[in-house]
Structure formats: C-alpha cells, structure tokens
C-alpha cells in the first residue's frame, strides 16, 4: 500500500506540470501589463521598463515558465502584484478558512445526505422517498449564490438571528456551511439511494432475507456496508465541487479564503496570485482523488493494488 501511494503521488507530477503550463499560458496570452496594474499612478516609462526588467517580464515565455516551475518546486509561487506579499504566504494564511468552511459543509452533507439516501432506498417510491429525493434534487439544482442570498435575507435580515456576512465566530460559519453543504448533501443522498438499491438486488441479500432476517437487520448488517463504498469515495472526490462552491460562497459571505483570493486575483489581473490559487486548488483535488482510491482499496478486500 505504501508503495502504491508513493507511486500515485509521483504520477501526479506530470499532471501538475500540465496544469501549471495550462494556467501559465492562459495567463500570459492576456494583453495588459501586470506592471501597469502594480503602479497605476506611476507613469515614468523608464521606471516602468526597469520594473519590468526586474520582474523578468521581458524574457521569452518558455524561459519565464521554466523559471516559474523551478520556483514552484521550491515552494515559491511568486509575488502578488496586488497584495504585495509572497503568494505562498497568502495562500497558507487563507487556506485554514476555506478548510474550515469546506469541512463544516462536508460534514453537514454526510450527516444529512447518507440517512436521507438510506431512508429513500429502503422504501423506494414512497412519499418519504419522493420528498427526500425532491429535496436532494433541489439542492443539486440550486445556484449557490441564490441559496446564500435567500438564507442571508431570511436569517440575517428578516429574523436577524445570524450575521449576514463576515467571518470570525461560529455563528458566521453556519449560513455559508449550509449553503455549501446543501448541494453536496443532495448528490450524496442520490448516490446513497441508488447504491443501496443496487446492493439490495444482489443474491446475498436474498439469502439474508430467506434465512428470516428482518428488513432492518438486512439493511443494517448486510446492505449498508457494501453500499456505502461508492459513497465514501465520492466524499473524497467532493473536494473539487466544494472548492468550486467555496469560490461563490466566500464571495457572497466575505470569507477570506482561497476562493476569495481567486476572485481578487482575477479582478486585479494578479497573475501570480491566480496561478498560485489554481495550482493549490488542483493539488487539493488530486490529493482527494488519491485518498478516494486508497480508501476504496482499504475498505474493499476485492480490490488489491498489484505491486510491481
């Protein structure tokens, strides 16, 4: 297993290089000079030239990309034009906020989604099933920003029980976590339902029923464990959608996390910052995928990774 994980980690290197190249070239075909962004009220052309040379902006693209890669491998993601601090430090400072938000949302989505899917699957096409699946599909179909606005208005403005926006206390975390977790709980509930239904059709479940075990026992002892397998892997793959959702959620609630950094970067044409956040986000997604595979292998004895 250790060797497998190591191999998987090494195999992400080409993906990271590909991702960084994609970001780098996307950013650099844009007209618009980062130096001009940095020094808005600073028009002396000689000085601009000097800064540009200092930042190596005059070098050819491949040279700059090679330099970026070398620095990135050393943990140096460059210097934010807008915030005027090293990008690595900015990301490290912002990440705990995003992590807190995403963890709260993920926990919420599991606590709501798994039981909902289970109840649905045990009585398919019942009233409870239809209601729960309607609720799940609403979660999946709901625009994140809209859920945020509605909750802000209801709890922040009309009822006045929770802060509309901001970050700091646990109270500030409730609305954003619900917003982000609702959609995720919808997909988890749908997946749990179909996965349990799938397992309930298998022969060993028929055997369990035939030996006289009650329905509750069939589900709890036999069906649950196997049907949660795909659900657990989805949890790890959630990273990507949680990050995407966090961009909007953080923007609406004013949470100083990774998503907000990405928006700041785009609005200010801050290339190193956007590059850094994108690279960091990608690393998180890849780690999520590896975790999913490792969990799958650890939980399902049928899957063994061959040593080579």
């Amino acid at each position: 297993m250790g060797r497998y994980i190591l191999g998987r980690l090494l195999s992400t290197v080409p993906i990271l290089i590909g991702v960084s190249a994609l970001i780098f070239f996307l950013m650099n075909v844009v007209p618009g000079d980062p130096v001009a962004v940095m020094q808005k009220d600073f028009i002396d052309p000689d000085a601009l030239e000097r800064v540009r040379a200092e930042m190596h902006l005059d070098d050819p693209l491949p040279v700059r990309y090679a330099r970026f890669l070398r620095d990135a491998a050393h943990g140096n993601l460059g210097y934010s034009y807008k915030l005027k601090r090293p990008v690595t430090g900015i990301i490290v400072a912002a990440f705990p906020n995003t992590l807190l938000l995403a963890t709260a949302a993920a926990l919420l989505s599991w606590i709501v989604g798994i039981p909902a899917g289970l109840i649905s699957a045990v009585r398919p096409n019942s009233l409870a099933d239809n209601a729960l699946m309607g609720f799940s599909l609403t979660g999946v179909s709901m625009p994140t920003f809209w859920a945020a606005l509605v909750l802000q208005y209801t709890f922040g403005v009309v009822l006045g029980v929770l802060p509309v926006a901001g970050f700091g206390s646990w109270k500030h975390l409730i609305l954003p976590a619900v917003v982000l977790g609702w959609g995720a709980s919808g997909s988890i509930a749908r997946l749990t339902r179909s996965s349990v239904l799938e397992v309930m059709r298998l022969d060993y479940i028929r055997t369990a029923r035939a030996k006289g075990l009650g329905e509750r026992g069939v589900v709890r002892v036999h069906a649950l464990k196997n049907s949660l397998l795909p659900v657990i892997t989805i949890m790890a793959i959630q990273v990507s959608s949680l990050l995407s959702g966090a961009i909007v959620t953080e923007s609406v609630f004013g949470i100083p996390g990774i998503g907000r950094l990405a928006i700041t970067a785009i609005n200010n044409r801050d290339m190193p910052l956007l590059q850094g956040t994108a690279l960091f986000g990608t690393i998180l997604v890849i780690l999520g995928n590896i975790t999913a595979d490792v969990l799958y292998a650890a939980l399902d004895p049928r899957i063994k990774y061959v040593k080579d």
Partner: protein
Amino acid sequence: MENTGFSNGENLPQQGILRDIADAYRKNRMAAAGLTIVLLLLAGALLAPVISPYDPYAIDFSKVAAAPSKAHWLGTDELGRDLLTRLIYGARISLAIGVVPAVIAQIVGGAVGIISGYFGGRIDYILMRLTDVVLAFPSLLLAMAIMYTLGGSLMNLFIALSFVGWASTARVVRSLALSLRGKEYVEAARSIGVRNAVIMARHILPNCVPTMIVLLTLSIPSYILQEAGLSFLGMGAQPPTPSWGLIAIKGKEYLLSAPWIGIAPGVFILITALGFNFMGDGVRDALDPTMKG
C-alpha cells in the same frame, strides 16, 4: 426498474432510442414534469417579445427598484426595468448556455474518448493525461481562468464551459470504446480491412451514443448553474445582457431594500435546473439503467 433495452454493446436502430425515451416518460411522472418545464421554458424563450409586456432594456428612472405590483409582477430592477420581462428574455441565454456547451463538450469529449479507447497505447496515454489535467482543476476556477484570458462575453462563456466539460465525457466514452474494441464485430470489420476511421464512426460511435445522450442531458443543468455563478462573480455575461446570474448580482446590493431582484432570478435558475435534472433522470432510466448517481 427493468432493463428497457440495452446498456452497452448491442447495436440498436435509432428509433429504438426514441421509443425507449417515450416509454420511460409515460411511466415516469417526474421526468414528464421535467420535460414540461423545459418545453415551457423553450416556449417562453422563443416567444419572449410576444408574451413579455415590456422592453427588457427600457430604463425608467421613475420606477427604480419598485416592489412587485399589478403592472410589474416581479417588480423592477435598479434601473426601473421590468424584472419579469428581463427574466423571460434571460431564458434565451440560459437555454443557450446550457445546451451549446453541452453539445460541444459531447462532440469533443466523444471524439477524444473514442480515439483514445480505440487506439489505446501512446495515443491513449497522451489524451488521457490531457483529460487528467482538465479534470484535476476545480471546474469553476478553470472557467474563471479562461474567462480572465478571453474576457467576459456570451461567446467566451460557451468556449470556457465547453473547455471545462469535455473531459468527463472523454473518460466515460473511452472506457466504453475500450470494451467495444474487443467485440467480435469490430474484429470482423478490421479483418476485412475496414479503415479505422470507418470502424470508429460506424461501429464504435453508435454504441456510445445512448450514454452520450444521457451525459448531455444531465450536464445541461450544471452548465446553467456554472454560467449563473460566473456571471454572478462578474466573469460571465456583461451588462445589459439579461443573464439570470448577472441580474442576481444587483440582488446582492439591494438585498435589504429590494430582495426580489436577487431572489426572482434564482427561482428561475432553480426551476430550469430542476426541469433539466428531472428530464435527464428520465432519459437515463430509458437509455442506460446501469448508470446511476
């Protein structure tokens, strides 16, 4: 949940697909409801100038952010434009933004997947690493980066969303093509000297189509939601386009004084996405009962 026909492998004539879909809709009320929503929306989008009472771009400063009333069912926005009218016109944008990238993503992803799965080897390796790169990106972040490069406009949204979307189709289609290429009839075709391009077009592609239709329908709502998110962040459609996400940005500013501006477009997006999701579930049950989740 009986298997209504085929999940993979068997080559069925085209009308089989349509009949399967029609059958499934007759049995599945949710799917029928979804289809109805989508058709209503389509009618609204096509007939927007006929059914909407106002001009979506007509500014009227005497009625800025007016509350819903008889004259303006959903009120007016911050420039005094009728909100309902703008939302009806917005249906055109949302439908286009849902369907166009979904179709492009299926075509590109399908082609990449079939080529990758059919040829295998080095071509497969290279194409799949490219797919990995796109899939490793948090999708909204990639779309944002592309919009940053291209600039905010409707056309660029099509490009950005298609670019984000093709990779997941490529993955699924590749594994299908991989299993199809070992089938006897493919081998038979190859043994009598049929060219690769013809085998892929005649023998592999038709068997991937049902799955691709399912992916297409189920991906439409996600594009609509992504567009709404991008426009809401100011990186999608630009004013005065009546995009639902763009209208909702103003809703954030007017949350206290005129909450309907933010809430109404969200309801439209929600209903649209729900409609497509219900419809997509129906298509999936009809064409590919093994694909769930």
